């Protein structure tokens, strides 16, 4: 037998001893109950095993082929942002005890992890201004889909009113999740000037009963919505308000819960998660107490041990698939616990003032850049509503060409949203975080202007 790569620990003598104990003479015989014609005859078609140093070299080679935020200045956003991740977050999340634990089914030896998940719930509750938060779902898109299903289950109405300016990928996932469960999705439009939800459209849609109105702020153009109005409107028509948000922005922008949202969902990547080509990120869901029983996923709460001492444990498992099976609120089992840990550590490090500063700096820098770019002839803001750290520009040049030329100069300049956009032909979405320096922003604005000049 060839040397094993470090984690197969049964030696030949161990295997013999174990076979003896079992009472068979070979592994082959041990597996007698598997019909021969099902047994694989040839070795798997896989490359030769690699030593740790070969593997390391191979992965480094693959990694080195990818442009990244070290090689290119990143102005890409669209639900996932290049915010700074404090090293403490990486450090804590790499501690083996956290990394190699499973879901805390055995609370007696998982109090540390349970405390983390419980505090995550509490801290996110404050951020969203909503009392009940679960331990995470897969990502922002599935958080939306799960939130929508909560509203449908609670209302028994199979109709959703959805703003057309939520993230396109979120909408796509929502559609997939709902289609097979016979849920009607009615899209409402946005105001071509402000970029915000078209309230008239919403009014019309609300004439029919709906489980929920779904909106997102800042929306997919980066514009802060008038949530209060939207939520009020929904409630007037007995629809729940399901609101998507960008957690970082909540450092300065009123929480959806404060405006009365019934369900708040978010993509949590901006809270101390690396970009990681988009995954794993984290879906977050919070809600009112009365909707708790509709929540998907894990919930942690306080209980007592047999001595009467307070202890933490998973609670309300009767909602979950391992108990309720096909009647469960969701199928989710593995979730994003480690990401919840990361964001808890992140939010603990930032705190009241830190998150406010991150949000403010991001906004300041975005607005500075936007102002600089708006000065370039042929460039205009797509929408006039107030934006947080992300904004759409309409261009007179070919977006793809522009992005490509800027990429050659070391910039991932923005997301090309020319294709699936009905308001304008050439459009770019630019996001700025706290990590870009004034010099970089100004350098980029200059490069942008020059490149436009070259290609127009």
């Amino acid at each position, binding site marked *: 037998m060839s040397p094993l790569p470090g984690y*197969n620990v049964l030696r030949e003598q161990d*295997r013999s001893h*174990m076979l003896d104990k*079992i009472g068979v003479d070979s592994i082959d015989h*041990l*597996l007698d109950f598997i019909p021969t014609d099902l047994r*694989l005859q040839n*070795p*798997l078609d*896989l490359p030769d*095993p690699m030593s740790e140093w070969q*593997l390391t070299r191979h992965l480094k080679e*693959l990694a080195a082929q990818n442009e990244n*935020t070290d090689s290119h200045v990143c102005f890409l956003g669209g*639900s*996932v942002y290049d915010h700074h991740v404090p090293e403490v977050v990486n450090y*804590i999340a790499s501690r083996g*005890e956290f990394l*190699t*634990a*499973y*879901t805390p*089914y*055995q609370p007696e030896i998982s109090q*540390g*992890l349970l*405390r*983390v*998940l419980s505090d995550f719930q*509490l*801290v996110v509750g404050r951020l969203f201004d909503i009392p009940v938060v679960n331990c995470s779902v*897969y990502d922002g*898109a599935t958080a939306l889909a799960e939130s929508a299903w909560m509203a449908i289950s609670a209302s028994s109405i199979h109709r959703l009113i959805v703003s057309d300016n939520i993230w396109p990928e979120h909408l796509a996932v929502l*559609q*997939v999740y709902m289609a097979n469960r016979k849920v009607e999705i009615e899209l409402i439009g946005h105001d071509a000037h402000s970029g915000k939800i078209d309230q008239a459209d919403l009014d019309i849609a609300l004439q029919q009963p709906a489980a929920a109105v779904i909106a997102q702020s800042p929306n997919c153009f980066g514009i802060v919505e008038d949530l209060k109005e939207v939520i009020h409107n929904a409630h007037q028509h007995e629809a729940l308000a399901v609101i998507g948000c960008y957690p970082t922005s909540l450092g*300065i922008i009123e929480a959806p819960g404060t405006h009365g949202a019934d369900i708040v969902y978010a993509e949590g990547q901006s809270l101390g998660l*690396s*970009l*990681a*080509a*988009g*995954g*794993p990120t984290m879906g977050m869901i919070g809600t009112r107490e009365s909707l708790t029983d509709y929540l998907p996923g*894990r919930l942690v709460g306080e209980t007592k041990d047999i001595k009467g001492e307070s202890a933490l444990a998973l609670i309300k498992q009767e909602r979950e698939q391992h108990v309720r*099976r*096909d009647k469960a609120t969701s*199928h989710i089992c*593995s979730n*994003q*616990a*480690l990401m919840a840990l990361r964001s808890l550590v992140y*939010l*603990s490090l*930032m705190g*009241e*003032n830190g998150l406010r*500063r991150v949000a403010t700096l991001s906004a*300041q820098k*975005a607005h500075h850049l936007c102002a600089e770019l708006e000065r370039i002839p042929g460039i205009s803001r797509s929408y006039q509503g107030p934006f*947080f750290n992300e904004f759409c520009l309409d261009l007179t040049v070919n977006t793809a060409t522009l992005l490509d030329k800027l990429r050659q100069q070391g910039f991932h300049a923005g997301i090309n949203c020319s294709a699936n956009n009905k308001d304008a032909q050439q459009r770019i979405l630019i996001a700025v975080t706290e990590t870009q320096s004034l010099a970089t922003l100004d350098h980029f604005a200059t490069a942008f202007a020059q490149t436009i000049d070259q290609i127009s």
Partner: protein
Amino acid sequence: MTPGITLKSARRVSVFDLSQPGMGGSGITDPDFDGETLPTELAPVATRAKTGLPELSEIDVVRHFTRLSQDTFGVDLGPYPLGSCTMKYNPKRNDTLAELPGFAHVHPAQPADSMPGLWTLFHQLQNHLAAITGMDAFTLQPAAGAHGELTGLLIIRRHFESLKQNRSVILIPDSAHGTNPASAAMSGYICKIIPTTTEGTLDVGAMREMLNDDVAGLMMTNPSTLGLFDPNIAEIAAALHENGSLLYYDGANLNALMGLVRPGDMGFDVIHINTHKTLSTPHGGGGPGAGPCGVKAFLEPYLPIPVITQDDDGEIKAQFDRPLSVGRMKSYFGHVTILIKAYCYILSNGAEGLRTVSENAVLSANYIQSSLADLLPPVFQQRCMHECLLSGGDLDVDPFDFVKRLIDFGVHPPTLVGAGCVHFSDDYDAAMLIEPTETESLAVLDDMIAQFRKVAREVELARYMIETAPHTTDVAKIITDEPAFLSMLEADKPSSAKTS
């Protein structure tokens, strides 16, 4: 509560208890921006005065979470034979390699041609998964096992839609993991439950009776969550296919099969793999995992977008234009860093290594089963695969109490009914599912067995102490209706002699 002190109480302390107004958030400065004045345009809508977030210093954060980690049991601390969860060693190298800047700092909206290394990795991984499972095409998008199930079931839906067949039922064995019926429900199917035979396998007769035009498919785990390989799988597959239905494979138990049997060869049409089980990506306290979904060629058109494929000219691309696709299951491409770890795991092991992994997983479970048979007889009188279902019915204590006592001896409890991720029907309510995994050495297995025995002996000892009480009197217990012994009669003699 004060920060910093009293070592053992971290679990009692929330981050709010450690909060001190004005602390934290430091270092968030930029020489060129004040970080305070809101942009004029934004100011009217950015009116939040307080978030109520806790305020901690960096050192308090480090200390608090360091301590909480010490109060959490993971595979890195000891054996974790939690049945069905495959808690094996997660190689440290893989964690680090997944965090290389060329992976960790890639924005998913970057131009496709700016990340060829990732495309190559995805494509290779898809191929490797196909090789391991005998499937034809894979999507890496699903976020976890359950999400893979949903993806697979939606693919099945699309398949029948395109055949213009209206099938509304998914058959599920009663032993199935809870995610199976839940995912079936989420994809709009009605679940019908197939009973398990007394041999622990799927009741093929019952199944045949349930087959009709309305059955879209059957979801199965093989080996099942009872730890048994279902030898009738070929027959089952044939029956399903004959009925025009499809066979779904829940790959959570694939750890038993690598290099030995392939789901594709058993007749499965759609499958998912739990990389966080079989391919040793760490579970992270409950996630994230990844649940790649594989299909036979005829189902390939339905895979979710984007599909990572290789062009005729060899270029690897993310295809979005797939008119038959089920659509998008989540944002972007999947759990990239988790997938990288799975890729590393496969490359470290190679074909022979993976086969050894599965052989050893099966060997270890059978070793445990054989070694504990007198104490905890197998629920089904058979050899098991990578996990064994043992009956605690002969124990003198509640199995729930029994396994909790194992904690005191450093062993994570196995899976019980209602205490973990697996569903057992009421018939096995005293059963425990033990999955030792292949990364525990014989010494650890023997020690684990010894701990089970130690707990059992405690019960015996307690019973013995009761049955042989009193212990503090001069003479021991006397049972008067016992037949008199010769020795007792003889013993009478001298004393009677004395009194005479």
